């Protein structure tokens, strides 16, 4: 029994924006799927199976929407799987699709993540009332703010590190035509002066709420070999989950995150993480999570991730480990697709197809996603050669 190789042979994304008022839900997912198929030089009939992911169904008020979307994705008569692992879902969805190829079950799998958040309101959907209990949690920002506060104290990081990340990602987004936020005239001072929303998180340090879909076509080794375009080979995949509330839980740097990273780097045979990885697409919905994940992923020592930010190590211009060249979650956040965008952008970088936000000479990239109360992790490492 040996693991089959898997390659990303097609990527498709929609334009991300607050409201995609021009399309239905099916129209939205079809736009991404079509572009992925076109990139892969395939048509619907070439696809063996579809794996689709999105975050809570309350966002659109459609229970298990893949049921209604089956034929929109060319699935009539085929298998379709629906994944949901909170914010990490886009990543885990891609990993489920990968495992279908690695297990030798399918040759060509279409995988897709989407969210049409404009149909409702994320804060509503994430803070549904529960009788007899006290309701004071204002969505994800209210949840992550106390965790970020602890990191800031523990690491003694300069106060404006988060603003630097936010400014960098918004600059990166200007090079990505699909990104939701294109703030051409944004200045660093404006980022700093933005109002505190969930102190210590400024409005400018949070992610937008987006409509959008992201799709990939994954293929077996023979499909990858036959591609006329560069492909990205999967060199490692990992998922980890841990419980939310238990004594002594390290919320700032969860053990599930570290073990997931150890696993994926070990599969790819990587020992010097910062040197051997050329570009990272990391799930950073609040700016401070960049230095936090840099530490957790082992790119920096504990308490020193912020130094990489300060040195510009994660900037596309001149950084040795560019992070979120696409603009990241801070510039685009259709929740159910956000993880898949990370994975897909990591693929585009390895395929040298990222356009204006391409980093020169990428040979290996990391795609990263997390979800829940920083409990669910999904990661993959892609390379321009087979593992």
């Amino acid at each position, binding site marked *: 029994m040996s693991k089959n190789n898997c390659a990303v042979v097609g990527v498709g994304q929609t334009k991300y924006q607050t409201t995609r008022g021009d399309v239905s839900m099916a129209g939205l997912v079809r736009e991404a799927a079509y572009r992925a198929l076109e990139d892969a030089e395939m048509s619907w009939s070439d696809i063996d199976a579809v794996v689709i992911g999105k975050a*809570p*169904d*309350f966002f659109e008020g459609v*229970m298990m929407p893949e049921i209604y979307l*089956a034929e929109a994705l060319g699935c*009539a008569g085929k298998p379709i799987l629906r*994944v949901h692992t909170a914010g990490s879902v886009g990543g885990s969805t891609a990993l489920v699709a990968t495992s279908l190829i690695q297990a030798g079950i399918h040759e060509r799998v279409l995988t897709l993540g989407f969210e049409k958040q404009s149909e409702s309101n994320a804060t509503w959907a994430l803070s549904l009332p529960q009788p007899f209990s006290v309701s004071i949690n204002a969505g994800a920002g209210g949840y992550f703010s106390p965790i970020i506060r602890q990191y800031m104290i523990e690491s003694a990081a300069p106060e404006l590190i988060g603003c630097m990340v936010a400014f960098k990602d918004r600059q990166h987004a200007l090079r990505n035509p699909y990104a939701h936020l294109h703030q051409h005239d944004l200045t660093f001072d404006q980022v700093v002066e933005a109002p505190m929303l969930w102190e210590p998180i400024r409005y400018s340090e949070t992610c937008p709420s987006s409509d959008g879909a992201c799709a990939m076509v994954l293929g077996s080794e023979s499909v990858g070999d036959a591609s006329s375009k560069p492909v990205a080979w999967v060199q490692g995949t990992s998922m980890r989950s841990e*419980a939310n509330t238990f004594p002594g839980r390290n919320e700032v740097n969860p053990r599930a995150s570290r073990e997931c990273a150890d696993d994926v780097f070990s599969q790819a045979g990587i020992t010097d993480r910062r040197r051997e990885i050329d570009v990272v697409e990391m799930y950073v919905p609040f700016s401070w999570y960049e230095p936090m994940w840099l530490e957790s992923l082992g790119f920096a020592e504990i308490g020193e991730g912020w130094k990489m930010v300060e040195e510009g190590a994660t900037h596309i211009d001149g950084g040795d480990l560019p992070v979120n060249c696409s603009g990241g979650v801070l510039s685009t956040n259709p929740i159910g697709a956000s993880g898949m965008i990370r994975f897909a952008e990591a693929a585009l970088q390895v395929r040298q197809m990222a356009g204006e936000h391409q980093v020169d000479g990428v040979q290996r990239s990391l795609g990263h996603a997390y979800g829940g109360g920083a409990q669910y992790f999904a990661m993959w490492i892609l390379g321009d050669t087979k593992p």
Partner: protein
Amino acid sequence: MRDVAIVAAGQRQQAAFTDETEVQILLPIFEQVRNDTGLEQSDIGFTCSGSSDFLAGSAFSFVGTLEGVGAYPPICESHVEMDGAWALYEAWVKLQIGEIDTALVYSYGKSSPGSLRDVLSTQLDPYYLAPLWPDAFALGALQARMMLEQDIVSRDRLTEIAVRSRDHASSSPHAVRKGDATTDFVEASPVIADPLRADDCAAGADGGCVIILAAGDIAKNVCDRPAWIRGIEHRTDAHSLAGRDLLSAQSAALAANAAGVGDDKIDIAELHGPFTHQEHLLETALGITDETIVNPSGGALAGHTMMAAGLMRIAEAATRVSAGAGDRAVAHATSGPWLQQNLVCVMEGD
């Protein structure tokens, strides 16, 4: 294909678990399958669950049930917003890759706090169907009438299936509707969505189901007679009426064919038919004959835990294979209106 078997299965089901959270429903089942196999969570290579937030009206309910698994140290885990049968499929795929040897699969549904027949309306096309809120029983009735009027099934056959469910359920600890297994009783059952009588529709239930999968020698070490998975496939039909034939279960037939159901005699079939007429459609789609005992548990008609009913069918079939009640069994799971999506799993004893 790597040899993978179901080595333990447990379930709980009753009309309503009013006093228990979803986690509390599951805890005793986790304990049972661990006792049955001697495997602890730390021995499990991959964990996968299935559920839906819409049933009890709370977002991220699966994040809560992760607590019942015991998720620290961290575990390798995933979740499908589907019936647990598809979680089992995902776990089986992971086992096929060959890097892990064991997997834990679970799913649960607690729909008693809401009105499931209405909640399921939110699963329909959100532009043309859902805004009319056609309820699940009414949708079933539209299909049943077509089948009756076009002689795809007879009224007597529907009664026979309802009686069979009640009869088989009488010996099933998990069935919530049992007893009075007579034609007269079923025929007197009140019509709730013409032409469907109450007994033609699955009895709603809350519950949970847990299964442990193991590969090769490990399966043999932890289980006297593992239920080896010889084929597992799933397919979907289109959702739109424009792409559906309500008089057959096409994707069930495709899945059954791919899973090799017809390759040999089937001793036991556990079919996830939420209505009597759908059980009939499934028997046809899977090519079930008289030599097969259909739904020895009473089937989904005797107790329908949304999101777990399909996994429960696999558990029921596997348990019977392991107990030696049959050598070859098929289990089926469905999802979506009118049997839209279907999974078929063929199991054999040694």
